[in-house]
């Protein structure tokens, strides 16, 4: 038996602000962070002052000490940041929070993410530097600068190696927009997407159309992690952590796109550890939230977690399979990064919790096992599995 956190830890509260279009949040990012945390405590039915730990991941700009001070927390027992780029740490931050409560470092660790891109720069735009040195000197002068451009190169190679066509990516986008039409929180609520509109949308960088790329939003999300024991005494149904894992494969960060295994979303060594800890297989997962910076990465991460073979993508990655309520693998049931909001994937963790609670706007019938994949194509990445 592995010594794991399985069933020892649960997510006991979730909270989010309204999700705003990029640059339209009426209050600063720091205040959004505080609001989401207060809401998560309210959802859990604990006092805000019970929170005594913080975990987040790369690009989080709101310092935990400032939050603890602003909220008047009497005990600040644990703080932790997950390394790496973009959304790779969404599940990893929950894992770190879980480790902290299981080890007794803190009682209630809040995982949070706040974004107000009007107040700060956009992630999809290049910095206006006159010169550049180091790893970026091998890419930026060639106009390879945005995340879409960094990842399109990997996805093109993946398409080549496994005969994957654009329609697999269209399926991810169409399912996300379909689900967002049921979710009043979603920025794209009331904005359905047709297959024609997907294909007719402009190219950002081949093979990514506009609708293959995540939104950019303002807002904040938070969830509270505690021991299974404490969670059982609280009002919401606990979302027990079956497994969580983080990691990266061999030399994935090699500069100038020199990762030896290139056409990968970087989950090949992580996924077996994750399922071993959960003591289940991908066939047991009822509903999946997979981070979409870009649709191509979702498809790669499905393959690497064992949901389908790389050479069977075109048969498996279809709108019909991904769409609630009849799909075999309902995917991104809140609309996800593409159509609910872009909270660097933390909104996916909140949706995974809703699914095992039975409160999603696209509730999968009898969903017991709910999974999150965080990060594709960055390093490190992370994933988690919850049960109700």
């Amino acid at each position, binding site marked *: 038996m592995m010594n794991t956190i399985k069933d020892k830890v649960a997510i006991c509260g979730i909270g989010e602000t309204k999700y705003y279009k990029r640059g339209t949040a009426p209050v600063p990012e720091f205040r959004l962070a505080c609001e989401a945390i207060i809401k998560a405590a309210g959802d859990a039915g604990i006092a805000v002052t019970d929170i005594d730990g913080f975990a987040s991941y790369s690009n989080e700009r709101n310092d935990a000490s400032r939050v603890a001070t602003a909220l008047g927390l009497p005990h600040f027992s644990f703080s932790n940041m997950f390394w790496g780029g973009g959304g790779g740490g969404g599940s990893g931050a929950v894992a770190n929070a879980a480790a902290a409560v299981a080890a007794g470092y803190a009682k209630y660790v809040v995982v949070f993410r706040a974004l107000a891109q009007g107040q700060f720069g956009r992630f*999809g*735009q*290049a910095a*206006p*530097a*006159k*010169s*550049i*040195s*180091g*790893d*970026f*000197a*091998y*890419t*930026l*002068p*060639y*106009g*390879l*600068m*945005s995340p*879409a*451009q960094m990842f*399109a*190169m*990997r996805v*093109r*190679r993946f398409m*080549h190696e496994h005969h994957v066509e654009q329609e697999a990516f269209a399926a991810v986008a169409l399912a996300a927009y379909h689900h967002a039409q049921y979710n009043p929180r979603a920025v794209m609520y009331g904005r359905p997407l047709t297959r024609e509109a997907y294909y007719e949308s*402009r*190219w*950002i*960088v*081949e*093979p990514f159309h506009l609708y293959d790329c995540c939104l950019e939003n303002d807002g904040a999300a938070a969830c509270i992690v505690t021991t299974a024991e404490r969670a059982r005494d609280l009002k919401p149904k606990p979302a027990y952590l079956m497994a969580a894992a983080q990691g990266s494969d061999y*030399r994935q960060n*090699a*500069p*100038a*796109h*020199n990762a030896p295994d*290139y056409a990968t979303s970087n989950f090949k060594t992580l996924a077996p550890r994750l399922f071993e800890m959960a003591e289940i297989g991908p066939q047991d997962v009822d509903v999946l939230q997979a981070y979409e910076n870009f649709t191509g990465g979702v498809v790669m991460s499905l393959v690497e977690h064992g949901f389908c073979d790389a050479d069977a993508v075109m048969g498996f990655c279809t709108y019909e399979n991904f769409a609630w309520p009849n799909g075999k693998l309902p995917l991104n049931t809140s609309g996800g990064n593409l159509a609910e909001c872009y909270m660097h994937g933390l909104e996916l963790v909140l949706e995974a919790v809703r699914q095992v609670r039975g409160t999603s706007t696209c509730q999968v019938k009898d969903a017991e096992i709910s999974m999150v994949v965080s990060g594709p194509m960055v390093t490190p990445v992370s994933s988690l599995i919850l049960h109700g």
Partner: protein
Amino acid sequence: MPSEQHATKYALPEGLPAPQATRDGLDKEFWEAARRHQLVVQRCNECATFQFGPEWICHHCRSSNVGWERVSGRGRVYSWERVWHPVHPALRDACPYMVVLVELPDAGNVRMVGNLIGDAREELTIGTTVEVVFEDHEQGFTLVQWKRA
């Protein structure tokens, strides 16, 4: 070695960040060699492993005895992308443009990013053979670019 190529114009407009060697000198030789129209790749003097980008130690044998080796400048397209949406002010009127990831079979298959010189709307397939082109800029740096061989 391919004949020395002098680009008649730049693949992309001026104004993008100019490459500069790192302050600690790690990749000084790479950018200086490009200036001399030579393509070099870091190579371990102990175990002969090529690596790019450069690092202070060999990732294979962990020796710090690493040097630079001149390579042929012939490669093949490992992946590519056609960029339509400009994310930098200098690129506003330059789209579409083609970025290629080139692997170098006679340098341990290390890869380099560059632009493919020519018509960006032309079809490109993975595996296409390419050849290095050195693009001298007046500000004193040279970019490593690629053209169909």
